[in-house]
């Protein structure tokens, strides 16, 4: 019996060690969210009495895999009636997912507060104001897929083959802009990677311009900040990807070692962009109590 118990205990310890090892390798760069935000319940309320203040509170957290400091803009209201002060508020640095925190950052809060100034509208019974909050933040998508490089890919009797799947890319990388597909072409020591990206979030990526005043030619742009394979840089065209219907692509090329044998190598691709996302507007009714 004692022996049996000892064996069971040892087995249990071994199995738990194995479990923890596997969780260490869990890919935490997944998901399509960046900054996630929502109005706090009843802030603002649907009805406000003119004697009380209008309080807007937004809860946000970083559910993506890049640390950023978002800026929030409160819009949709008449500032002569609701003088919220500066509609722009800078949030604290919000850390996202990491190896040790795979569920994303903590909830943080941002708020605006304003009295109701009716001025000469003293006879009004009630009226509506539409409030919406827009978040703008810098973000990056970082992917490290494993690519099989086989310089003799097209030779019929090549000896050591590896499969040509690109591993560990997934369909999202913990950011609203996702690298959805990588296709490789190889010719001698030249490799070509065709990279397809998709805007999987509900917002708009952009590179230049004022967040709240973006012209049509400024939106849906993503920059390829870095692309490497086996540590060697790749040259991407275009460097600035323009998305059409939320999708776009670039082709990156570079030299790889021509040792003759197939081998696996880690590629690293980093996309950078600004991202703008708005909450659905919340309509509030202000009731005038003289």
């Amino acid at each position, binding site marked *: 019996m004692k022996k049996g118990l000892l064996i069971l205990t040892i087995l249990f310890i071994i199995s738990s060690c194995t479990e923890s090892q596997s969780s260490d390798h869990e890919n935490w760069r997944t998901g399509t969210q960046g900054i996630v935000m929502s109005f706090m319940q009843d802030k603002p309320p649907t*009805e406000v*009495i003119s004697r009380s203040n209008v309080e807007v509170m937004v809860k946000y957290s970083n559910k993506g895999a890049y640390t950023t400091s978002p800026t929030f*803009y409160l*819009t*949709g*209201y*008449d*500032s*002569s*009636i609701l003088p919220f002060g500066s509609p722009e508020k800078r949030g604290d640095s919000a850390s996202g997912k990491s190896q040790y925190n795979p569920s994303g950052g903590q909830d943080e809060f941002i708020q605006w507060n304003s009295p109701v100034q009716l*001025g*000469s*509208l003293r*006879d*009004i*019974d*009630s*009226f*509506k*104001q*539409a*409030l*919406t909050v*827009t978040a703008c933040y810098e973000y990056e998508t970082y992917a490290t897929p494993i690519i099989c490089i086989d310089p003799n890919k097209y030779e019929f009797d090549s000896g050591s083959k590896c499969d040509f799947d690109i591993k560990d890319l997934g369909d999202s990388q913990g950011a609203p802009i996702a690298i959805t597909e990588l296709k490789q072409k190889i010719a001698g020591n030249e490799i070509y990677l065709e990279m397809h990206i998709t805007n999987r979030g509900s917002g*708009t990526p952009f590179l230049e311009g004022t967040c*709240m*005043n*973006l*012209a*049509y030619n*400024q*939106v849906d742009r993503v920059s390829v900040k870095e692309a490497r394979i086996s540590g060697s840089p790749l040259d991407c065209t275009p460097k600035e990807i323009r998305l059409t219907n939320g999708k776009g692509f670039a082709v990156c090329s570079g030299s790889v070692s021509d040792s003759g044998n197939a081998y696996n190598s880690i590629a690293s691709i980093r996309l950078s962009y600004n991202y*703008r996302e*708005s909450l659905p*507007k919340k309509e509030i*009714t202000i*009731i*005038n*109590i*003289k």
Partner: protein
Amino acid sequence: MQEEGRRPASLTLPYAAKMNRMLTAMMLVIFVAGCTIGGDSKTDLEKDLYKGTQGVVLTFFDTPRSLFEGELLDYNIRIENKGPYKMTNARLVTSVEKGYAEFSDGNNVHVLDSIKLEGKTVYEPYDDFIITTIPIRFKELDGQSETHDSFIFTTFCYDYQGMLFADVCIDTDPYGLIKQGKACTTNSAISLGDGQGGPVAITKIESKMMLDDDVIRPQFKIFLNNRGRGSVIQHGSVDMVCNKEPLSRETYNTLGLEEIELSGRTLSSGAIECIPNTLVLKNEEDSLTCTVKKEFGFPKSAPSFMTPLNVRISYGYTESTSKEISINKILKY
């Protein structure tokens, strides 16, 4: 005996249990009912005062269709302010046929002045009213008549106002050139069919956002309509209309545009211009176009927002009614 002894024992315990259950059930019912009544007693504030097209309403109490000579009739009228505006400068003129009826002072015209009725408020959404009693004595008919049909004429004049608060969108990107999550977009036409609590209603607003260099100049075409049964008179002309004084051409169908306000820009301060600047009803309707001046325009770089457009008009109103009464001779045969 045994049976008797057993029976109470077997009946008493379930009976007590039943009683307990019934009491518990009754308490629960009372508790639930109390909660329900408490829930129903919750009252909301009146959020929409400016609605309807009635204004001030006169209701005549039932009067006999015929009566005898020498009889005294108490002519009762209820004057009720159904709108949200204070009724001022009101005058009720009642007249009867000279020689057939008279009021208590011996005249055939009775004037009731200084009637004031408050408008509704958010706290007091009830209609303010007064009931006035005017005694009318019917005179004896001449010896040749057995009956005579006479009329009681009533004319009521009062000064009133109209106020519109319409939620409009200041759309700083009317052509959608800027990619932004807009809080609102311009409605080309806002229908306001329910009126604003007075007989003259602003029925529709057409809005346009005009781009003028770096600013947006909102323009509103405002349509008005007399929805009541009476006539519109110039504000302050009650003394003329409900009196014997002569009338001028402008007395009827003329409204005053008191103010237009949009996000701190007002007509009185010169930030808004309106064409025409006087309102004259033709076939009971009229319209005017108001535009924010360029120097008071909204920067097109600012985000779109909602704001109340306030339009204030003033006018007088008059309504007349008549009631037919048959005077009968007291026959001595």
